[in-house]
């Protein structure tokens, strides 16, 4: 059974530009960051490969297959190297 859950998403760096917003509240049936990112690729036109991102849930880095819970704060962080 797939319940939908409300999540708060934050984008960093190039992902923020691609998404066009820095924060986003979504109601989604995605169960993991991998599924959530796939949805965002479809709806917001994100282009970075998921394998090159890091994700944080509730201010802590975690893996892309961690189960999402309602109310989670999700941050997608791409590699950054400008100096």
């Amino acid at each position, binding site marked *: 059974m797939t319940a939908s859950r409300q999540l708060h998403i934050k984008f960093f760096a190039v992902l923020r530009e691609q998404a066009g917003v*820095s924060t986003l509240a979504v109601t989604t049936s995605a169960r993991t960051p991998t599924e959530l990112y796939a949805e965002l690729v479809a709806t917001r036109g994100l282009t970075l490969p998921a394998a090159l991102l890091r994700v944080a849930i509730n201010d802590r880095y975690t893996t892309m297959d961690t189960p999402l819970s309602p109310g989670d704060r999700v941050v997608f962080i791409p590699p950054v190297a400008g100096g």
Partner: protein
Amino acid sequence: MFELTGQPIDSTALRARLARPDAGACVVFEGWVRNHHAGKPVSRLEYEAFDELARFEGEAITSEAEQEHPGCTVLCVHRTGSLGIGELAVWIGVVSPHRHAAFLACRQVIEEIKRRLPVWKKEHHSGNLAEWVNCTTESVAGRLAPENYYARQASLPEVGAAGQARLAEASVLVVGAGGLGCPAALYLATSGVGRLTLADAGKVEVSNLHRQILFTADDVGAAKATVAAARLRAQNPLVKIEAHASDVTPANVRALVTGRTAVLDCTDNFATRFLLHDACRSAGVPLVSAAVYRFEGELNVFRPDAPGCLHCLWSGRAPGELEAVANCAGAPVFGPAVGVLGVLQAAETLKLILDLVPPRNPPATRLVNLLDLSTQAIERPADPACPVCGNPVSAPPQRTDLPDSAPVVLTAEQLAALGPVRIVALLEPGETLDASTAPAAAMALPMGDLVSVRELAAQGGPLVLTCRHGLRSAALARLFRAEGFRRIYSLGGG
């Protein structure tokens, strides 16, 4: 070149000795004997040098200037003996293809001569009074009293005289004299970090000037590390500033990093970041790393003694792949964003030296956004299976999307079929090379010495890693395979 002479200095003859057809500039400094000093009239001077030492030190000063300002030829002559008012006490001439380098080198030589040359002068005042003055008190550094320079900082209860002494004993390497490195190095120098080395192989470009605040329009075309070092010496002559105007490589990284109190990663690429990280980890030096994308930046402090490293963060992703999405040369950047992040790097470094990091602060990536002025800490848990800082219980699966997907883990038969190979046994602390667990041909390296592994892998030819249980060697071999080293293997393992 440096000379001491008891004869009057003939500046015309000296200038002729510097003539060079490719020289477009000659900058000359002449130090004259004047008729007053510190409010007292002076009738003549007597210079006395510690001869051997003065020649040695003078030669060191002029050759340092020639090395740091490529293209410059330096000649410096210092008088000894009795001199009348208006006579030449010291003459410095610098020729160079371009004037900017000549001005910088000339200024550097006179300041270093004043600071370091073992020369004393006896001032004869009108009347019969005479006194010996050590010339080093006349350098800019000699005129600045540290207790005045650092007064407003040392009076912080968190710093104090003890903290200021710790800063003076600290040695910090800043890699990258760009948008991050300029402000970071500026604050480290003015705060009194005793020894500061700037490493950057680049030259100043016009498009750097909007954010790389140590450089002026005159510096375009000059070596960044050299110009930045000269600028910082002028900012604080009380600290020792060194320039390393070439790349940081696997061959030189250990020498640059070892013995430092901290290293700052102000680079713009993942390859150097990984190299610095690994070298710092094995040398036991904290790495303060930052990176910027347009209006946003991130800050990480990697402590060598704590789990949670750069590999935990980006494990299995090759620097080249990360680079491709992280940055491209000429990318847009908001000047104050690199400024803020560079200053944060300096602050974190000073806090490390002064022991002001709050206890039990979990390692975190600090994200900073200059558009909405938000900052966010992302806690950075260690990956328990990290091949570098953790304990791999099973090696991560081999990636199949890489150009060479030959097996990483070899059996003894596959090893024999490989032909001549170099075998490296990775040893835990206290472990010795043991014929029962490592092949006879193996050379030994400490487990943490990723810099040497990287160096050996880069030499080409098959490289086989082993370790007691084969797990860490397999995990490390996969990590290096993902970085693009195609001929690295592990003997046995998960």
